[in-house]
């Protein structure tokens, strides 16, 4: 890992999107054991995975992982905590509606 430079790598992954009454979820799993660290960015290639209502889609795709530079990783570790209010369930809708 570079101090300031970002490195990119590709990884095979499995995306699973469920758009059903019983479960609404979407996940990405890396098939080569790659793990994500603070500040890394993940981009799944290809067209959006569009599950219509009632569908569950499981597909293999390729993803690019842009590894955060060392500085960025430290920064994300330090500042990420400040954003943890997002975890509170009502904290998602921003601002007044009108």
């Amino acid at each position, binding site marked *: 890992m570079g101090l300031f430079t970002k490195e990119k790598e590709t990884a095979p992954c499995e995306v699973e999107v469920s758009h059903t009454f019983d479960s609404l979820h979407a996940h990405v799993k890396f098939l080569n054991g790659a793990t994500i660290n603070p500040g890394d960015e993940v981009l799944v290639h290809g067209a959006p*995975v569009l599950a219509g209502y009632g569908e569950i889609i499981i597909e293999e795709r390729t993803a690019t992982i842009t590894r955060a530079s060392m500085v960025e990783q430290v920064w994300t570790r330090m500042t990420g905590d400040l954003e943890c209010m997002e975890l509170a369930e009502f904290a998602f809708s921003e601002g007044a509606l009108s």
Partner: protein
Amino acid sequence: MNAHTDVNAAGIIPENSDDSTAMATETTLLDPRFYTTDFDEMDKIDVTPVRKEWDEMIAAMSADPNKGHFKKNDEWNTPDWEAMDPKLKAELIDFLVSSLTAEFSGCVLYKEMKRRGNNPDICALFQLMARDEARHAGFINDALREAGVAVNLGFLTKAKKYTYFRPKFIYYATYLSEKIGYARYITIYRHLEKNPDKMIHPIFKWFENWCNDEFSHGEAFALLMKTDPKLTNSFVNKLWIRFFLVAVFSVMCIRDHLRPEFHKALGIDIDWYDREVLRKTSDISKQIFPVAIDLENPRWEKNLLKLRQASAAMDAARRKGGIAGAFGKVGAGARAGLAFASLYLIPVKTDHVIEEDSRMVPSY
């Protein structure tokens, strides 16, 4: 496996149009955040000190008492969205979308923890909680579809940055979030039991059993924190807990006041509701947190109001933009910071005892 290439402009599969309730469909792009944490630290959690309680909890969650609950039945009467006052409709949809995003994000977070972890106890728990959250999200999603709102799950193919939280911050924030979620749902439910004419949407009828899931997730985090007394007893961590209590409580009050029409239609006085929810949550959180906010202290409501006003001024400045907006933001930010500090500095209550076995059952 399923290949899709016919992406339309909105990025969503067209909804079936022969549905008699079909309306002009708008799409909402779900944009959950992605988190990472110190998975090695989480792997080291040892539930041995609370093994008995832990196994009972996992068994109860595995039995899945709410499995059959999230089904539509005769009780579900689809609201007349077309005839609804547009402001109320917008706020009700906003309520549903933010609830859905919360459930969905919880699911993403829990699933990630389950997947990255190597500790079988922890993985089992997070898998069960992810199951509940995905189920809740599916149920809300269905309600949104009736309102002509389709969610777009296309976010997976957009670049996503992973942010980082220390495990203990996840425990404090999610514990409180689950318990306050329980208190919110049950307070609305009990209010509507007494005022059935205010039932503006059938989803509230499901809240009684629904909130038991939130309650038990909160219990799980309480047990997790019990495995390591330092998490709740060290000097520094007590200051963090105090911070989370004030932050979660005050943000809730700010957000609720942004939906005046929604609460009016429910016949709920927002100040009463927030007071009620905070009282319940505060009482429950004494099961694990050694400090509690003194909600009776007059400084609490006084500074809460100041914080809300500063937050409204911030919103106004943001909308205004330009130099005046920028100055406005600085002023509002300073006032908000001051109000928050005043809330934080109210002496906390510490006169409660945390039992060795402090498990609770939903009782409101």
